């Protein structure tokens, strides 16, 4: 049976202005005791959520005070959205009512009216323009199981090290395997053999490339016809861009840092206006589409264009809710959610060091970004300006929950890699590599 797919669920719903404070209070209560273990969280103990890697709720206020505040839920889940929403209604109906009940048009019957609830949530779900996971299609249950298997192996090696060190590698592995098997039933470990998924992703990547080539060939005449105009338009717009100016370092006045660096990961929520007009909007969507295709087929194991620290990240466009406005005056907003390892400084540093081009291609289509050239040049190369800009568009996240508090992306990938090989016939070389990774 194929594994459930990694799924990005984003729900963005306008908040009833009079209920904003009640919503903030409910979120604060959740944040004070995330999994409900201290008995302080009567709203929504997050430990009960099934198939959830990371989840957050954020109140997105409009700094220009033109647009109503919205509540955004970012959930990184396994499998289809409908089944997940039904489960939410089943295990967390009261919590859902407390939170989304503060939003416009929430069903009167609440989450107990499962059909109305799922329909309302679906109506407010926004597609991720691009969605990345470091361990694509590895379900949460497997992340947990494989970590336990790896931990068991580590304990066994610790306890038996003196004896194991005298054995040839193949015998070492056999001994470890026998001991883990002996524990499996009592500790609830799943050791069933599982193939690697490289081939599946490689096939998907080849299909993507083939489709891109075919599509490119079909559209070639049209592309050639518009390319000069598009390039000229882009350069013209880039020279007229007005990057935000930061005469001095952006101060963290919302206490963002106060919420950082408690566990292995940190989170980031960014919101920024897309530059007005259809050209930038179209270009942004095209760039994100490209990133999404690559993230689904190529960047599936541990890095996104060289950035190794992201567990899950997504870009979501929230369109201006005022369709009557002329295009040039509508404010589409780009939301970015990231769940990453280590510190903000290292994460943003990795962006600049390894993926400046890619992120310039995305965010140079948004307001205030350091000046770009040819879509992906310059921009984030200006490290100081980029970090200032990034802090300036970051907003506080009221509730954030991580299901892998002590694992980096590399840890999860190692756990899965080690577990998958546990019950396989390996060559001598493969056994040495396996032992080295424990």
């Amino acid at each position: 049976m194929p594994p459930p797919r990694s799924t990005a669920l984003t729900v963005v719903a306008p908040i009833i202005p009079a209920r904003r404070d009640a919503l903030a209070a409910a979120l604060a209560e959740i944040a004070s005791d995330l999994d409900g273990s201290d008995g302080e969280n009567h709203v929504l103990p997050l430990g009960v959520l099934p198939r959830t890697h990371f989840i957050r709720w954020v109140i997105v206020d409009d700094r220009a005070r033109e647009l109503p505040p919205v509540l955004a839920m970012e959930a990184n889940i396994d499998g289809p959205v409908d089944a997940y929403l039904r489960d939410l209604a089943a295990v967390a109906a009261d919590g859902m009512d407390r939170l989304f009940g503060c939003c416009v048009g929430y069903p009167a019957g609440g989450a107990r009216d499962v059909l109305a609830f799922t329909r309302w949530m679906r109506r407010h779900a926004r597609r991720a323009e691009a969605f990345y996971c470091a361990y694509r299609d590895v379900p949460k249950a497997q992340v947990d199981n494989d970590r336990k298997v790896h931990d068991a192996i580590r304990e066994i090696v610790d306890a038996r090290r003196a004896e194991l060190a005298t054995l040839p590698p193949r015998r070492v592995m056999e001994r470890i395997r026998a001991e883990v098997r002996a524990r499996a039933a009592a500790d609830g470990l799943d050791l069933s053999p599982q193939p690697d998924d490289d081939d599946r992703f490689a096939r998907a990547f080849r299909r993507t490339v083939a489709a891109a080539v075919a599509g490119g060939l079909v559209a070639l005449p049209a592309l050639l016809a518009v390319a000069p105009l598009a390039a000229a338009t882009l350069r013209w717009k880039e020279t007229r861009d007005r990057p935000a100016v930061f005469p001095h370092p952006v101060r963290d006045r919302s206490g963002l840092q106060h919420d950082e660096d408690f566990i292995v990961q940190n989170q980031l929520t960014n919101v920024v206006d897309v530059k007005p007009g259809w050209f930038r909007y179209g270009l942004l969507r095209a760039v994100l589409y490209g990133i999404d295709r690559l993230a689904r087929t190529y960047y599936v194991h541990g890095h996104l264009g060289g950035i190794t620290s992201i567990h899950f990240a997504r870009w979501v466009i929230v369109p201006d809710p005022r369709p009557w406005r002329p295009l040039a005056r509508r404010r589409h907003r780009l939301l970015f959610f990231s769940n990453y390892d280590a510190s903000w400084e290292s994460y943003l540093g990795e962006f600049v060091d390894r993926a400046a081009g890619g992120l310039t291609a995305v965010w140079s289509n948004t307001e205030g970004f350091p000046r770009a050239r040819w879509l992906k040049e310059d921009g984030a190369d200006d490290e100081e300006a980029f970090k200032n800009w990034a802090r300036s568009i970051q907003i506080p996240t009221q509730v954030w929950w991580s299901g892998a508090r002590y694992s980096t992306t590399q840890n999860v990938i190692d756990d899965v890699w080690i577990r998958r090989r546990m019950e396989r016939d390996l060559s001598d070389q493969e056994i040495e590599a396996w032992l080295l990774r424990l």
Partner: protein
Amino acid sequence: MAAAPVGPGSDVVEHADVQALAFHAHKHHLHAAFVPLTFADRAAAGAWLADVASRVSRSGPGGRAPDERVQVAITGDGLRALGLPPETLDAMPQELMDGMASRARLLGDVVDELDRPVGWSLPAPGRALHALLLLYARTPPARDDLLERELGLLPAGVVAHPSELSDALRDREHFGFADGLSQPYVVGQLKDRLPGQDVIATGELLLGYRNAYGRYPETARLPGVGLPGDDLGRNGTFLVFRKLEQKVGAFWRYFEDQAVALGGGVTADWLAARAMGRWRSGVSLVHAPDVDPAPATPPPGANDFRYVDDDPMKDDRHGLRCPIASHVRRANPRDARGGTPAESLEVVKRHRVVRRGRSYGPAVAPNEAAALSPDADAGRGLYFLALGASIARGFEFIQQTWLTSVGFHGTHRERDVIAGGGPPDGEEPRSLTIPARPVRLRLHGVPRFVHTRGGAYLFLPGLRALAALARWAASPP
């Protein structure tokens, strides 16, 4: 709108305007005193700064150095106490203005439930730390004499805290290991480059010069006091000062106990070298994984090595020679940080600091350390001093992302057992994985040997800037 940076294109270091400490370790001045100060009165602080500025040592070409060296650095609170305008204070880095204590959790120090550091005595509780006077001399009497003279010159409005006195400078820190081997070579420095020394841009150390990104970082302006371009930052740098107590007895007792428990010819020296990543002599485990070839002094070229090599006999990407989680490998991962070796070196160059540390407390021979009583195993450690143009991208990054990170380069839930801090003992066992064939070794539940006793983030201004600060505080325009 920010003024254009002063002097783009001119990267010739103005040594005469740079405090000597930036380029000189004062190695011939074996004895140091660090005097924490509080500015109780602003005008008095200004008058004192103007006075001491004439004695501050500036960088310059070699020759016989004067017998005394004086440097002055000011904290974020100190800049506030001098009454600088809000625009100037806002333009200083946030970490400087917030202060080291507010960053304790990020640095892996022990904190209480309000994120306040625990176990700090510097500054003393309730006392503000505004400046640090750094004094260096050749002999203990000369140092004491210099200290007494400088204390005597303090006006009533500048209050000295108890002085912090260093032990005689040696090339070993208290655990017994050669230290300070991997200083970077800063473009524009006066000393020649050593073999294996990586080259970093002037702007990584000094404000006003091009940094590793090829940029001139924004710096604070202070108008009306005669600074060229009103640039307060130019030729200045930031100083990280930390007092780290080292439990030398506990350190060697631990490794001796572990060596006995492991048996099989494993020695305390061998184990401690895995934790540190080098032998006590300073020889890298990459060069000599099994025995220390030069127990006495670090041989030339001890710092000249890489972790990744196409030749499998020399390659150490898996840490079979020098454990990936060892202290020196975490603090400077060189070519093994990820990506290609060349990419890794480029990235690592953006996170380097210039170190100026000094030990304090009586030295103890490693073979006698394990016998130290708990009472005698106190009051000794390291004044950690590091300089750089960005505390956040330099010192804090190294401390947080490399030393304290529990997932550094694929390690599993381990911190640096030497300086990685982490949660209080007992909350999560500290461990060290030592890769080996056929299976790795792991030390589990390693106690803390290094305890932070205090510290500060400071601005080490250039000479002109120091005089300008004095003028401003004495009589703001």
